[in-house]
């Protein structure tokens, strides 16, 4: 029997590189939103720790590491990336499969903040927004999630349907930054 072939959100348009900066699409595996029910936040966090060795992150923070990470994604909500969340957590939290809802990018290179300064109103100054920090905010006019994974790299999540726009806008910003550098 024919099988359904999976397509990634940015298939065919990524990766690319502009003047030392790279934008790639990440396959982070399963993504599950975890929203603990009233009074269940601690229990849900404990359950996640038992399951994947990480807690439910506090606001604007992440936990875990690449491959098995939890990122705070809004009021009373986190997204667990890379590990399947045990259905037994259901008694503590609303679990919703979001594995296909997001396009996840990694933008990396020297001056990555200069590119993002053209796209988001967040203060991503390394002294303010450190490794492991997370923010829900805007990328252009799109809702987005930003995670700093290193001094020169961010993971950026946008809704799947807007992946093309996001990639285009990041690309334009990368080129403008490169053109400025060439001028200097």
């Amino acid at each position, binding site marked *: 029997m024919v099988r359904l072939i999976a397509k990634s959100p940015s298939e065919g348009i990524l990766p690319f590189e502009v003047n030392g900066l790279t934008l790639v699409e990440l396959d982070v595996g399963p993504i599950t939103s975890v929203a603990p029910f009233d009074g269940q936040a601690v229990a849900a966090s404990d359950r996640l720790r038992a399951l994947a060795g990480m807690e439910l992150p506090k606001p604007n923070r992440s936990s875990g590491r690449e491959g098995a990470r939890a990122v705070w994604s809004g009021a009373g909500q986190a997204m667990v990336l890379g590990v399947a969340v045990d259905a037994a957590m259901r008694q503590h939290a*609303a679990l*919703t499969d979001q594995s296909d809802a997001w396009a996840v990018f990694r933008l990396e290179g020297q001056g990555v903040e200069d590119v993002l300064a053209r796209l988001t109103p967040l203060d991503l100054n390394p002294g303010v927004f450190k490794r492991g920090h997370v923010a829900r905010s805007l990328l252009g006019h799109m809702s987005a999630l930003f995670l700093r994974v290193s001094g020169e790299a961010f993971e950026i999540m946008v809704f*799947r349907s807007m992946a093309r726009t996001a990639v285009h806008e990041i690309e334009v910003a990368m080129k403008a930054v490169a*053109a400025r550098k060439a001028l200097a």
Partner: protein
Amino acid sequence: MRIEGKGRIDAAEQIRFSFDGQRYTGFKGDTLASALLANGVRLMGRSFKYHRPRGVLTAGAEEPNALMEVGRGAAKVPNVRATVQEVYAGLEAHSQNRMGPLAYDLLSVNDLFPNFLSAGFYYKTFMWPRAFWERLYEPVIRRAAGLGALSGRHNPDHYEKAFAHCDILVIGSGPTGLMAALTAALGGADVILAEETNEFGGRLLSEDEEIDGQPGADWVGGILAALRETGRVRLMSRTTVTGAYDQGTYGALERVGLHVNGPAELPKECFWRIHARQAVLAAGALERPLAFPMNDRPGIMMASAVRSYLHRYGVVAGRKVTLFATNDDAHRTAVDLMACGIDVAGVVDSRPDAKALGDYPLYAGGEVIGTKGRKALSEITIRHNGAEQKIATDCLGMSGGWNPTLHMTCHMNGRPVWNEEITGFVPAPDAVPGLTPAGACQGTYSTAGCLAEGVEAAKRALTALGGKLPEMEIPQASDAVGGSKPLWLVKGKGRAWLDFANDVTSKDIKLAAQEAFTSVEHMKRYTTQGMAPDQGKNSNIGALAILADATGRAIPETGTTTYRPPYVPVSIAAIGAGAQGQGFAPERFTTSHDASVDRGAPMVPAGLWYRPSYFPRPGETTWRQACDREVTMTRNAVGVCDVSTLGKIDIQGPDAAAFLDFVYTNMFSTLKVGKVRYGLMLREDGHVMDDGTTARLGESHYVMTTTTAAAGEVMKHLDFVQQCHRPDLNVRFISVTEQWAQFSVVGPKSRELLNGLLDAPIDNESFPYMGCGDVSVMGVQGRLFRISFSGEHAYEIAVPARYGDALYRQLVTQAETLGGGAYGMEALNVMRIEKGFITHSEIDGRVTCFDIGMDRMVSAKKMCVGKPAAQREGLKGKHRQQLIGLKPVGAVKELTAGAHLFETDAAPTRVNDLGYVTSVAFSPTLGHFIGLGFLQDGPNRVGDVVKLVDHLRGVETRVEICSPVFIDPEGERLRG
């Protein structure tokens, strides 16, 4: 004329450019104005009203006269200040606001009749005959008015916007700003130093002045090195801070690529949104022109500008220079010029006790009372010791003292305060929260004072941030303040200009006062004083003083002056950057987008999404042919359509059912697991907000669907209801619109099609009408809902979005083998109209549940959002226009949506208006047009004939009122 060895230009790099077709040579570092002056060009523009010849007045962004068109074709920029535009190779500039060549502007005929063109003359005439305003007067006025011209073509250049964040923003890099930035950085703050011009240093680059025993420019270099060394200062040159907004937000315009021939990716300008926790305003001061008879000729410029051209560009604007001043500052111009061997023919100082600083003729207590030279100054007439005297001169530098550049402090409604000591306005205290003015912009005019205030202001900002205060040594510098005595108007024969760009003279101000326009705002609006491109930077204070004099009041009691953002004009392309073309809003693509395009479907916007309009097949030449075929195909076999754009919200929790009961009019707590129910949602004001189906997947797990259009609004509404009304409910919800690709499979063969793909076949038992459940489709876990928006036996199948493209292609291919295929929005719309299903064409935001015949869906057993307000008398009853169906009477070519309904014998006027048509379609199923609409007391008029009138499309026809459900009213097909 260029003075060798002077200026900060790079004499090694020659640059060729053109002005009005004439080729010239300048140097790197020149502005267009300095390069033209160096080439002896003095006539640079024409004034707004009288079209008088004008030359350059200033050396900065406040320039009112030397406005030009720069660039060619679509890239042309009008109203460019020649004083700001840096020259680059190939720069092409043209003079503007002229009819014919610049030197022989035909519209200068206006200058012959100034008395007939006095302030506000146009309010008093051009009224007869009435129709002549649009046909004659206005077109003539419009053509004569305006300044530069837009190309009328799409902007071809890249502009960008960006955000920046800092602890302390320092605006201006003169002595005040440099010391503020250094203090702030040494105090541990992250600093942005914004400088309007290409070089840091401000006025220090335009003066011959020492700091700490070094030439000013050298001292600047040292401070810049120290700033860089801190690693905390972001130096932004060519960046003008344009506005102060709430909570430390500032707008700033950076000229990124206007001074070079850059690549296409290089932005011309960048509009910055800077968030600064604290800011120091060190914007300096602008020199005040003097109002004396015929003070507008090319060659008359600001005394400080003469110094700027000399020291920054090595340019002198004349061979025989005179000065007219009220203060010591202007004498520096004479001294500096003489040091370069320039002939200074005299300094006219209105102060009787003025002292000369050098060996030049001084006319203390004198005034300039006239000038000569049509296209360039040739002579001035002065009155000195009661006698008149003529002096030959080709450049007159004038100085009426200084006005603090306090504009930013007005942006949050701060009103400047009159300071008698400096006879000028200074910023109101704490006019902008977190912004500390320092130096000349608050009236401190000595260099020593500026240096000290820069330090103080930065310390104040550091203190507010809770930072440490560094030990700072104040450099040694001059403490001269350039003592000035105001002179607001020199009496004499001839007009004295105030607002050069708008051609406002002292007489206009007096006329306004004479006609009762005595408040400052009235005067400005009546005379257009201060409304020109310089926004009154050069003239507002002078005009206010003359108004005060004309009304017999002191300046402070006459009023104050204010400024609104932006400080300098900002390109629309800069603030609107990113939006040109597709960038205005994100584009959302369904997973089936490429497959639809592959099949030739025209994709049309649906909110942010794109959806296929129809799928043309060979031989079909119109959309109607495709649409009719898609409808027939679907109703007879099977059709497939992507419905992923509908909002999908996953709702979980012990109180999920109670929550849904509260947001929907009807009950969802009674819905059985594995079932779907139609739901109606009201706004709290009782009108219909949205509708959709909600499925119960588990005891405490639902998935709600919304319309495509209202998905975002509904999500926000649910958040509001839960957080602000019912935080007691233990419920969680999240959008899953993006997670699932969802396709409707519609028609009598829909189950057959699905059973070819599902891993376990379904039947009417396992999936009855309004049933739902998990399925496995080609090995992928999905969900199946038996719901219909067409009246047919239909399903919606959902799979994780990564499989959307593949599943859609499979579904369409399989449908085609069954005699069906893909259908688009047009066919979807026809089928839902045939079945009488509503969309936002019907529930347009003014419609109530009563109007759509669903008032019985408002459960009496419970409270819900909108229920109380829907009971108002205005929202129900016979006066309301209610949903009906329409079908043609006799041979009717077409019905049109947007038409209104009348009794057949009534005139189609407002008072007879009974309703309107919301949706129409040609029904291939029925073979004629059908429509949905709203008619007063409609349901009681089924069978009546009314008149449909569409004035706009020329349609007038009779239609019969019928049920909105045109096909299968019993719903047999749905359950088949």
